[in-house]
């Protein structure tokens, strides 16, 4: 009916029928009584906020943006989107220095990388942690990600010619983490794709996807990044006919879904061309490509589906790839949030909640006792490694380790 087409509410909030299912799956509601919960913070609160912005509740900052409410909702309401959109619209507090620092993953990376050994040593010190806790309220119990001395971008740029020689090409949106903290993951991706006869190109000066800026009150900067990134992705997709592959589930969700839904940056023409590398690799193998696996490879792997991978609905590709590696003993961990949620768990006020949210997952990992936990998200990796002592690797890295070239 025509009339109904014109009455679709923003983020579908009028579709909420108050069934309360979202409240069952909200990890924050289970541990933090100050948080009003997804139903109240999302569609219920939206009715009030539309009447009068006075009803905006600052406790919405406790939302992890894990999107588990949306995965659970039987009515297709964009609950987490409603919450984040209302924070963008109504929250008038300026982000604190700490939040600006935590959110500026690219800036921090470019500062820290040239001094990586020093930075890594200093952030590992108890005294530094105490100081950061006292001055910036970054929790002292947190371990900091290590920086890498050489960035991934310069590594790949040096190999541009060699990569261009491959018969097929993709562009790689590597994100801040691969560039500044873990170039090894980027190299692993190049190894796997090269083994499939695919060369890897950089995008034309990618910027941080901006996910941490969105949740830290810096949506204007995030929007600038979004416009830039969509533009360079468009050049790769429309200009060169390339697929853009990624290795971080949160960057991917941001590029594909948060840009149009939260920042109003239209990406409809390129969205379908931005794929997690695990999906791209799976599709190549399904279409008949083959990889040669090392004989005698053995690894006990437990796979944790990160929240944003769950929202993308693509955990199945990582699962399938890991299961097809000969010698992998595979366990799928129960669907649960690890509690870190990007910058959230670094904040002093969230530390306890963050660890309490992750506790059931940590417990299950200990009982499975794998050699390695597989996971498509860098912040989950930090959280799980810090909280359990188990090593965490991206499925692409495990695949790279298992193949022969």
């Amino acid at each position, binding site marked *: *009916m025509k009339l*109904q087409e014109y009455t679709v509410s923003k983020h579908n909030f009028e579709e909420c*029928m108050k*069934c*309360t*299912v979202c*409240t*069952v*799956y909200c990890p924050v*509601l*289970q541990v933090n*009584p100050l948080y*009003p*919960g997804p139903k*109240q913070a999302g569609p219920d609160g939206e009715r009030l906020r539309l009447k009068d912005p006075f009803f905006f509740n600052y406790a919405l900052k406790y939302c992890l943006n894990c999107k588990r409410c*949306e*995965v*659970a*909702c*039987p*009515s*297709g309401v964009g609950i987490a989107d409603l919450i984040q959109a209302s924070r963008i619209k109504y929250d008038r507090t300026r982000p604190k220095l700490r939040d600006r620092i935590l959110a500026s993953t690219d800036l921090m990376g470019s500062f820290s990388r040239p001094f990586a050994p020093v930075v890594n040593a200093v952030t590992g010190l108890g005294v530094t942690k105490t100081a950061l806790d006292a001055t910036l309220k970054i929790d002292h119990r947190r371990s900091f990600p290590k920086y890498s001395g050489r960035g991934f971008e310069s590594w790949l740029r040096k190999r541009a010619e060699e990569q261009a020689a491959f018969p097929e090409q993709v562009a790689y949106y590597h994100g801040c983490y691969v560039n500044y903290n873990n170039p090894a993951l980027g190299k692993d991706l190049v190894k796997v794709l090269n083994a499939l006869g695919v060369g890897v190109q950089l995008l034309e000066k990618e910027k941080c996807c901006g996910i941490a800026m969105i949740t830290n009150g810096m949506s204007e900067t995030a929007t600038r990044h979004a416009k830039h990134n969509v533009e360079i992705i468009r050049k790769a997709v429309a200009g060169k006919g390339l697929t853009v592959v990624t290795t971080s589930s949160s960057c991917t969700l941001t590029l594909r879904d948060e840009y149009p839904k939260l920042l109003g940056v239209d990406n409809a023409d390129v969205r*379908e061309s931005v794929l997690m590398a695990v*999906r791209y690799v799976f*599709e190549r193998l*399904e279409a008949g490509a083959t990889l040669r696996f090392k004989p005698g490879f053995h690894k006990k792997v437990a796979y944790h589906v990160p929240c944003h991978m*769950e*929202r*993308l*609905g*693509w955990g*199945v590709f990582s*699962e*399938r790839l890991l299961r097809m590696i000969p010698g992998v003993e595979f366990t*799928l961990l*129960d*669907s649960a949030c690890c509690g870190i949620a990007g910058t959230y768990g670094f904040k002093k006020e969230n530390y306890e909640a963050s660890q309490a949210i992750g506790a059931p997952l940590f417990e299950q990992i200990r009982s499975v006792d794998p050699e390695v936990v597989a996971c498509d998200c860098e912040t989950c990796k930090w959280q799980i490694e810090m909280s359990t002592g188990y090593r965490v690797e991206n499925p692409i890295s495990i695949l790279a380790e298992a193949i022969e070239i």
Partner: protein
Amino acid sequence: MRFDTVIIGGGLAGLVAGISLQKEGRSTAIVSAGQNALHFFSGSFESLEEAPQRLSELFGEAGIRLHYCSGIRLMPLGTFRPAALSLEDVSLFETPGFARKALIVNFAGYHDFFTSFLAEGLEKAGIACRIQALDLPELERIQASPSEMRSVQIARTMDRIWEKVVREVGALLGDEDTVILPQVFGLRDITVPGRIRQAMPARVVFVGTLPPSVPGIRTQALLKRRYEVLGGTYLSGDEVLEADLEDGTVQSVATRNLGTHRLLAEDFILASGGYFSKGLRSNPFRIWEPVFGLDVDFAGDRTAWYDPAFAADQPYMAYGVKTDASLHPLLDGMPVKNLYAVGSVLGATRPEFGSGAGLAVRSAFRAVDAILKEEAL
């Protein structure tokens, strides 16, 4: 991605079908568009004359024990209904006068459990009742946010402190022979309700609360885990948007999350639920099935859809997709050969299947049998 069977819908019907097929060595995927009616599950399966043994076995292997006796069970508003195959949370009685005196205990600040209705109903059955509220400091945290004081929030605390609750309720007990508690126990640990029954110095009866249903959520989690342990692929929060048909058979389906990556299979099961789950959609003029556009059985005259008496059986609840005798749904009058419709999408009141949970399970088993038989040929 290719499977033997793709199941559209991850509720009771979809999970029962998925588990049964995986057990027989078939590869399956379940596409689940959000959570489902198990979150409103009473804990009982009605009209399951054919299936109890088979269902008990399937549930047992998932770690869920079922029981049955011919008699009655106590409903949340103090009325009784005939007993049915039930989760162990549900107490079954031979007669309404199952006790002499009952102590009904609620938690202070919890509004989704109706103690006075219960007392009224039980007193009609000759059971004297006393109502007590338990004010626990452990619940203060969730009491702070009254709109969030729901069954599942309380259940999370109870998982930790149920032993203390047993002691405190024990202390409240006078000469009552029965204690009635809201069904908020054993969210993560299914053994808790049984251990409470053992530890309490009186008979314990758990009674359903307003949603979400704690035993239902636990059932969903255990069945999903069982399905995944058997190697099934459960796609959470995804939705089938359209299907590709050739010569009256379904070739593949497309989902919102997977986009151009279609799901291919030999057989498809439509377990997408009723109006709530959007397995059936409606507007003021028609009722339709959104994935395949299947034939739906409904009255042309809209005034016949509903009965103005609110509590009466509403005709629209009986509407569902039309099928042949083998549960193949009809599309423009012709059965779709490799598609089976199960659960609430069939319409909630097909008397031959029983209602709700019973319909889900029996129709799912029938579809599974048809798929396995067809492969054997």
